[in-house]
């Protein structure tokens, strides 16, 4: 067996009677950016939730750093080193920016590193320092996304999973966001990215998977998929092909 940081093997997930994922296998190698793309309802969010333990698979296995995590609860998975920024960001909007960051380092193993982590968060996102006393709910969409990523990073994760981070952001901020994701990756952060912005996501991804109604239908390097006419037709659209 190769040493993947994360390995999802043959996972089946259902919501009641409706099966959302069918025999899904992916892997994420240390230090890479992996993108999951696909249409709405294809199961991308479900896959992230299954990995982070918010929901549990009926079949299959999930290994992280060689350990099985499929049965763990969400609070145990984050302790293993996987931070999940959920769709819609999942901020505590009644709490201040600083309180959100403090809770990011809630885990006993992350607490002693709080001062360092906070410094790193503020240097990555200076605006958060300026807004630290403000309620998270009062931030702009872009600032909220920065806070969500910064909070996830406070737990010192080995793997950061972002679910639709560009959703609802202005085009200018989307570019900043992708630059930021690349910058995080250069700092040795491994990322698993779910994106509706397929073109941008594939451009920065080392490896990518295409999900279609609950199954992996294509896998390959980001640039390979970007060049694939099928992918272009289905997910990227006319305006990107000309570039």
């Amino acid at each position: 067996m190769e040493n993947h940081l994360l390995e999802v093997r043959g996972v089946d997930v259902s919501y009641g009677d409706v099966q959302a994922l069918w025999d899904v296998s992916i892997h994420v190698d240390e230090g890479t950016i992996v993108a999951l793309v696909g249409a709405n309802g294809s199961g991308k969010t479900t896959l992230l939730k299954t990995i982070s333990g918010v929901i549990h698979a009926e079949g299959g296995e999930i290994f992280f750093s060689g350990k099985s995590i499929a049965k763990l609860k969400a609070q145990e998975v984050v302790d293993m080193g996987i931070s999940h920024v959920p769709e819609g960001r999942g901020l505590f909007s009644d709490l201040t920016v600083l309180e959100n960051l403090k809770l990011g380092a809630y885990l006993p193993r992350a607490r002693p590193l709080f001062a360092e982590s906070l410094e790193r968060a503020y240097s990555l996102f200076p605006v958060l320092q300026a807004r630290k006393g403000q309620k998270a709910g009062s931030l702009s969409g872009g600032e909220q996304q920065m806070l969500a990523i910064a909070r996830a990073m406070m737990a010192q994760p080995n793997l950061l999973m972002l679910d639709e981070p560009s959703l609802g952001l202005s085009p200018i901020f989307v570019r900043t966001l992708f630059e930021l994701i690349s910058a995080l990756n250069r700092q040795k952060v491994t990322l698993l990215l779910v994106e509706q912005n397929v073109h941008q996501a594939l451009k920065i991804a080392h490896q990518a998977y295409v999900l279609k109604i609950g199954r992996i239908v294509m896998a390959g390097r980001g640039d390979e998929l970007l060049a694939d006419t099928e992918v272009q037709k289905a997910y990227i659209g006319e305006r990107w092909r000309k570039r």
Partner: protein
Amino acid sequence: MLEYLSFSLIIQLLVNGILFGTMYGIAAIGLSLIFGTMRIIFLAQGTMIIFLAYVCYWIFKLLGIDPYLSLVFVIPLSLLLGAGLYHTLFREAAGLEDKNISLLIAVGLMFLVENLMMVIWTANPRSITTSYTILSFRPMGINVSFTRLMGLFMAVISTACVLLFLKKTLIGMAVRAASENIISATLVGISPHRVNAVAFAIGIGLAGIAGVGLATIYPFDPYFGFIFALKAMISLAIGGIGSVFGALFGGILLGLLESLASFFFSGGWSDALSYAAFLIVLMFKPEGLFVRSIQKV
């Protein structure tokens, strides 16, 4: 009756209302915290208050320890009791999607404790009589009894402590975070059992304080608990779920309403009016009077 009405009498009624309302208020804060993380109205709250009032009564009768001094035992005991109740009774049910199960457990607990108290202490009202029970101050002709003033004092101190705890400690922040979004809370590593147990500990801790306050002011019997829980629920509805200050002010407003209604109408009307206030608030401002804004669908 109105010929007796004077300025000082009105003030007296208001003072009485505020002093008793704070007891409703701290019971309501407990309900609010437990509701925050568990998403149930903990209907046994009033019965736990009466139970802890009996504990205070026993410590006084059997050991001869002053009721206020007994807080040194009652507070830690009730904090432990709260966490223990969660871990034994609610732990399994709390994870279920259907919150009605937890609500049923609370109802079952209420009846069990009520009946246990009946067996142990009988239905005869009990009260604690000390040297200061009849002590009162008369600033400007208004009668303020020492025990009620102590009740107010304990309520203010405990509200301040709860607020500080929620605001300043990491686990307090975790309770607030879990009240807002439990899924996100687990994603940063917060265990739902941990925050639920803490909410229960504080809720029952406040019940301990309210129990001592009540035992020193009023005669009480096992059945008073359910009424008290209803009054706490009304306070919570008036004040708005999720706000500690709101719950306290809701209690004070309810106390004022009852005090005025029982003077101008009768004791029976005072209860009827407080339930009517409950419905009216829920009809016209369901988020509560002291909650600034809420997203409306």
